């Protein structure tokens, strides 16, 4: 490692295809985890709204899942689902649940009762009320949760390289740490941070576009 420059920009340029591919894998793994996590969390949140006593146990279970280290959770699943994308996604989805369920429940709880009464008075059915009244009002808080979950997941996806998958962790571990090759390590870390920051900023601006009235009111 001493006899070559610390960071070899020529390696990055020569391997742009490989690096781009790893970014793509990283995005796909993150996207699946957040997408599936959102669907499950929404289901749980709607269930909790009908059966309130389920909230405590749901948070306790998803909280316990959240504190199991990622490599350990992957490893516990390997005997069942093998060294596969499924193993990685089950663990990654599990980690999103605590943040998402908590935020979606809080977001829906935050919709003012008068608004719900008004919607009922206007003759909205429960599905229509949820879709056209509650969700738009709850959106900023829900997106705040999605942002945290996405940033966390982008970091966790790097660990999937340890169970034989790709993503930016491949640049950090397989072509980086295992070969004592600093350039690959730093490229992987820098791109992972960049993805996290871009996702965070992107989701924030998406939320502002979707809820223009929130801006109008505060401005």
């Amino acid at each position, binding site marked *: *490692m*001493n006899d070559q420059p*610390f960071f070899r920009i020529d390696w990055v340029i020569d391997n742009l295809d490989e690096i781009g591919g790893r970014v793509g894998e990283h995005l796909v793994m993150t996207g699946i985890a957040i997408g599936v996590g959102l669907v499950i969390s929404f289901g749980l949140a709607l269930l909790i709204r009908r059966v309130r006593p389920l909230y405590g146990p749901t948070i306790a279970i998803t909280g*316990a899942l959240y*504190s*199991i*280290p*990622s*490599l*350990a*959770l*992957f*490893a*516990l699943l*390997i*005997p069942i689902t093998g*060294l596969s994308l499924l193993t990685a996604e089950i663990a990654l989805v599990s980690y999103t649940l605590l943040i998402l369920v908590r935020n979606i429940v809080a977001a829906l709880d935050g919709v003012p009762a008068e608004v719900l009464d008004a919607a009922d008075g206007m003759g909205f059915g429960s599905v229509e009320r949820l879709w056209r009244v509650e969700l738009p009002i709850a959106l900023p808080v829900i997106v705040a949760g999605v942002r945290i979950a996405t*940033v*966390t997941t*982008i*970091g*966790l996806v*790097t*660990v999937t390289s*340890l*169970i*034989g998958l790709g993503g930016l*962790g491949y640049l*950090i*571990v397989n072509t*980086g*740490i*295992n070969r*004592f090759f*600093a350039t690959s*390590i*730093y490229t*992987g*870390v820098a791109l*992972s*941070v960049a993805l*996290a*920051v871009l996702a*965070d900023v992107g989701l924030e601006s998406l939320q502002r576009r979707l809820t223009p009235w929130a801006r109008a009111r505060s401005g």
Partner: protein
Amino acid sequence: MEFLGEVAAWFSDPASWEGRNSIPLRLWEHVSLSATALALGVLIALPIGLAIGHSGRGARAAVAITNIGRAIPSLGWLGMVLPITLVLFERGGLGFLPALIALVALAIPPIVTNTYAGLREVDRELIDAARGMGMGERRILTAVEVPIALPVILAGVRSSAVQVVATATLAAVVAGGTLGDFILQGIFVRDLPRVFGAALMVAVLALATEGLFALLQRLATSPGLRAATDVGRTS
């Protein structure tokens, strides 16, 4: 069921309990690495958090530290430290040292953030009253602000501790040993009982850490504060 028998066999095999690749040694590596990193993390982060929280200056720095801490993946810390320690210490730069530095870096942000936030939440009137009673700045900090903010500060230490124990598992990638080493070895040689057994130990260790610090947080909440929050809850 058969598989769980194999896991039990790994645990009960005498070979798992002796030598340089034994359960007690890997567990000790895991615990000692985590404890050292957390202790150093507290020593560095607490004064920073107290200074920012008490004076109210440098709040932007605190926010920046939090955001950086959140965006850099824990595996990334290990990766970033390794080339530097290898250049500085050659062979000594592998193993415990890069793992320790990475874990300390990881432990700092939650403690800084929570210490700062905890102190900021203290009622300004209480601090004015303390000042009116003739307390010096240092005494206000130690006798008023810290006791009131302690549960929040300890919540930060708790999330650092859980994160450190979790990431210590990954230290195996830089030859830092720990229980994570069994997982990586096991994946490499397709010894699934070893993978599963070690993962079980890591999960228990993480949950135990969480539980221990939750208990500590409860015990450290002053009786006056506990009464106040209880009243708050019933009303």
